[in-house]
């Protein structure tokens, strides 16, 4: 049994990967392959980070709606990550892998095949990312009463969806897990749809739109007031994104519009002098993340985040409610949107009894928080006890092969 554990937080958007023994910074790179127009070979995983040109990159991702579906593509990305980024031999190490709750049997099978048959890991443990994030949070803030019981409510606003996961004694309470089918990908596509309709057609530029979203979007804490001030011609919420032209800049940048044109504020402006293309954004900046708090805006028949937390509490024993509410942890890339925590607190406060204290915490690193917790778990003896060994898989896997043969 080797001590080396590869900790891999396999998210819909990015892979967070590292080895527990070395205290080197882990690496974060896109979980997908990107194809640049006109080039034959797609860029795999971390190669995309080195690629400065964000436009005309089309991405293929192995993860669909949060679950691994394309194991061939994932194998390419992992192979590069293990060999070139981490420089480890899977045959002599174990794997700690995150997996979304309630994975379908078919997805679990694909993952197990990939881990044991394709890469040949010694042993593997699959855990929901939320419990790992909670573990890191416990270490960060031991002062919080609920953390001493390893208890808290994790809001994982990821790329594919948003989960509300109550955690007690370092284990997720499955009866309380709630999912909203809105994640960063949907928000990006929604922003893309809006700006393509209102100003410049960006439908081909998903990868670039993701960067624009990260820079421009914020969560409104007072929607009514923000909408009111956005109506003004010189609204302080207006921003323009200078699109990459491939000569002066390859990524583009955000700026506050200098001189508002006399015409409608919504028109894309082409400056005669510099001939730069700018994308004008106004209320899109906060109406896009808004759908996470009110999915009805998009026609999705699901509760907003604050209500989903209340629904999650209904699935948990009442005596845990005060502990869970006092320790709400926000993780995931979408939670990094400015104003997220304040808005959630403002929405949630009126929905729960005023006897309960509501505490919302945001780690410094909402994206890699789960990975950090994973490294903690991998270092503890609990990992070795809980992990499934390749031997166990081979026995079980053989049984599975037999059932398939019988079906034939």
């Amino acid at each position, binding site marked *: 049994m080797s001590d080396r554990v590869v900790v891999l937080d396999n998210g819909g958007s990015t892979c967070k990967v590292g080895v527990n023994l070395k205290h080197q910074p882990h690496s974060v790179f896109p979980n997908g392959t990107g194809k640049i127009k006109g080039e034959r070979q797609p860029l795999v995983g971390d190669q995309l980070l080195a690629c400065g040109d964000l436009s005309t990159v089309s991405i293929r991702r192995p993860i669909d709606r949060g679950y691994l579906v394309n194991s061939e593509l994932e194998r390419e990305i992992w192979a590069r990550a293990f060999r070139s980024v981490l420089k480890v031999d899977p045959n002599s190490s174990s794997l700690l892998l995150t997996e979304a709750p309630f994975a379908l049997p078919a997805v679990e099978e694909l993952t197990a095949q990939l881990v044991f048959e394709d890469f040949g890991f010694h042993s593997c443990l699959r855990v929901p990312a939320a419990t790992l994030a909670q573990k890191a949070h416990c270490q960060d803030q031991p002062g919080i009463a609920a953390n001493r019981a390893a208890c808290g409510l994790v809001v994982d606003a990821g790329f594919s969806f948003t989960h509300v996961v109550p955690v007690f004694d370092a284990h997720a309470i499955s009866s309380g897990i709630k*999912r909203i089918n809105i994640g960063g990908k949907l928000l990006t596509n929604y922003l893309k749809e809006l700006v393509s309709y209102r100003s410049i057609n960006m439908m081909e530029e998903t990868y670039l739109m993701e960067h624009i979203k990260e820079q421009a979007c914020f969560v409104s804490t007072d929607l009514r007031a923000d909408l009111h001030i956005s109506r003004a011609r010189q609204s302080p919420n207006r921003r323009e994104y200078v699109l990459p032209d491939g000569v002066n800049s390859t990524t583009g940048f955000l700026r506050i519009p200098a001189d508002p044109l006399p015409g409608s504020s919504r028109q894309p402006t082409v400056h005669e002098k510099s001939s730069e293309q700018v994308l004008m954004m106004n209320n899109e900046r906060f109406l896009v993340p808004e759908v996470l708090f009110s999915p009805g805006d998009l026609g999705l028949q699901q509760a907003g985040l604050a209500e989903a937390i209340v629904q999650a509490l209904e699935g948990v024993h009442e005596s845990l409610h005060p502990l869970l509410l006092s320790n709400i942890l926000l993780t995931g890339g979408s939670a990094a949107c400015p104003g997220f925590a304040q808005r959630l607190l403002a929405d949630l406060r009126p929905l729960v009894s005023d006897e309960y204290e509501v505490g919302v915490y945001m780690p410094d690193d909402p994206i890699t928080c789960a990975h950090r917790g994973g490294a903690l778990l991998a270092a503890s003896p609990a990992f070795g006890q809980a992990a499934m060994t390749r031997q166990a898989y081979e026995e079980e896997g053989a049984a599975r092969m037999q059932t398939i043969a019988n079906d034939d």
Partner: protein
Amino acid sequence: MSGARPSKRRSTRDKKTSQRVGLVDKAERQQAASARLDRLEDDQDAGEALGHLSDDEFRLDDSDEGAQIGEGRKRKKGGKRPGVKRKTRGQLAEHRGPKAFSTLLDEAELEDAPEDGLSYLTAAAASSVYPARKWCSVCGFAATYKCVRCGSQCCSRKCFGTHTETRCLKFTM
């Protein structure tokens, strides 16, 4: 006899026009809304998918799963003789290519899960107790009006004009 009378009185032009600009009913509106949500979950839109194909060699295939684009080299092997029984799991996977999550979800038949079982389906957040808010489908601000034809929200005559010219379901469906 009595049922046929009104249609005799109406001119054919009236009938044609009313069919063309007819209301989009509730089911169709719902269908359009869910199609849009699906589109928002897509990795790449149709244009990009086509661009991807034209870069590689273009191949026609009888199956219509979008996820298979770019896997042409491997499919050709298995696709030549569709009637042949495949023996190994490896070949099977190679032939079919990756499945979309919705396909896997259908195949898992979670509706038949045991009573105590919590599943992917039960974990979805239930619908909100509050009514949906109304935003203008054109400019995004609070909307007061509704398009009678397709039910989209609009805030002003100006936005409604833009809506009828570009987005009204009459044209998109």
